[in-house]
């Protein structure tokens, strides 16, 4: 559901999620706002990119559309 998560929620690293690693929260660079994972090599320019990655992944893995990610 669209309001499943509050807008300022921390973002789980979708690449770690893809590898079935327990949630690793993304960090955000202070100077350019880039999102990055402290555990793997995942990087994203902005929040919509992370959300889309996760949504596509869940759709692909489990056949569930989660527009609210």
């Amino acid at each position, binding site marked *: 559901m669209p309001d499943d998560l509050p807008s300022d929620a921390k973002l789980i690293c979708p690449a770690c999620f893809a590898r079935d690693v327990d949630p690793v929260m993304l960090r955000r660079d202070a100077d350019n706002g880039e999102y990055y994972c402290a555990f793997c090599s*995942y990087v994203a320019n902005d929040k919509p990119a992370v959300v889309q990655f996760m949504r596509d992944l869940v759709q692909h893995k489990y056949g569930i559309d989660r527009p609210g990610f």
Partner: protein
Amino acid sequence: MLYTNIIHRLDAKAESLASLRFQWQAALTRGLPATTLCSYASLWEENAVSLAREMSADNNQELGLHLHAFNCPRFHEKYHAADPGFWLLPRATQFAAIQEMVERFTAVFGHPPASIGGYIMDATLLRHLNETYPFIRTAITSCFEEGARMYQGNNRNWMLFSDGGPWAPHWPSRANALIPAKDAEEAVDIVALPHLNRDMMMALLSRDDLFASHPGNIVRARINQGKDCPYYFRFLDAWRRQAQHNGWSYLSFFISSPWLSAGHWISDHPEYTRDMYLDSLDWMRVHDDISVCTLSQFGEFFRQEVPPGTPHICHWRDELRQSKREFVWFITPHYRAAFDFGLGGTLVDFRPYAGRIDGDVGPETACQWNGSHPFVISAGLRGGYWNNGWSVEIEANGARAALHNDRVRCRVERDGDFWRVIADPQTVRLGDGTLTLRQTWILDQSPKIRVLREILSKGNINGPVHILDQFHGSIGTTEYPEDLRSIRLHTRPGAAEADLPPLRARLELCGEDSEASLTAPTLFKPRFTLALRTPLSTSKPVTVCLTTSPLTPN
């Protein structure tokens, strides 16, 4: 100068020979020297030998041996061995097969081989080669950072564990081939080379075999766009840059011909691999700071210019994603270390070599299949730096701030026999105040890692400032905990120490006026912690040292 070896493998199959001819001609028409290593089965295959003889007429070609292709009728009938991996065969079988290969090579080509390649060549095998075949002076001895993560990614079909060693050419210790020798007396007199160069970020974060100096591996990773792959050439250029820090750099371009042939089990577009192969050779030709040579030519350069005991550094950027993440790797005869500047310079991989523990593999050895040198820190295999790593916090104004929460850039400066790794200043918020400080790592031939911390500025910080170092360590080669009951932890004024009997090594974390504390491992948290709380003033930097030393039995 980036010294580059173009390496081919002579195989027995007709399609492989056709691809090898393509590789040879590509090098020949560009005037580039190359080395072709003859596998076991190929030495008795008429068409293969014929091609090798043809190639040997080319003055730019060196022929050597490769310990591969034992899964053939001749070998099965002669040795009754089931393992196709040479490194896992009984020692007597290894020695007999090498003798057979050297004799056959000499009979066919009229001279003995000067170079040899293998996936794992352990210390006993290298000592045997050196004593029995002194004309073999250069060897490919290991595959950098192939271990637990590779094993997970290869469907358990490739039983090769050699984590924890050098990524660059080195003089192997007589005790353990993954450990660089400290002097000529300790060294096996064979120059040891890595099988391939690997992405030094992906070596820590993922599988590095998909991100290597090998177009077929790039296509396997599906990071090419047809015959183009900008990442791949950024990766190659990164190895050119390493020469700035060490005076020289090395690139192994070892692509066996099946990767360029139709029908390869995983490379669905050999034409892309071939195009990238040719582009790689052209890349080698256009840069003045690249010297392409044969294995033996590189070995002789190394003998002349790089004495045993010389440390080696690698400053690696995120060439894959081109983010701000940077890593520094450092190796000496005392330890190997990797720092992640995406985590403020946290030590994320650490292997003490002081104990010179055995690393031989095979059915008669204690290690059996596991040739990896154990870590004390592996953030990647143990779930993150919060479980396994040396991280730092600042304490002031009744608040704490972690330096590993921020990405920083760093630069590497060489000053004679030591290197400074200087991180960009970090500003942290502590309650109502802010503090800006800088960390500098001093790395040299000694068994010490020294870290200098200096306050550059502070605002609204009242009272003392302390640096809190926490070294979370364990022992292992995989994700799973091992028995840590023999570990002994001690403190003395200004220092916290760990005695690690399985590694025959002692670690000491010490600082100026530091308060030391310890945390013992538990079954739920199988790690020990060495901690220091060190006062930090604006008047002078403070230094904290991590020292490795051999553990002497009581």
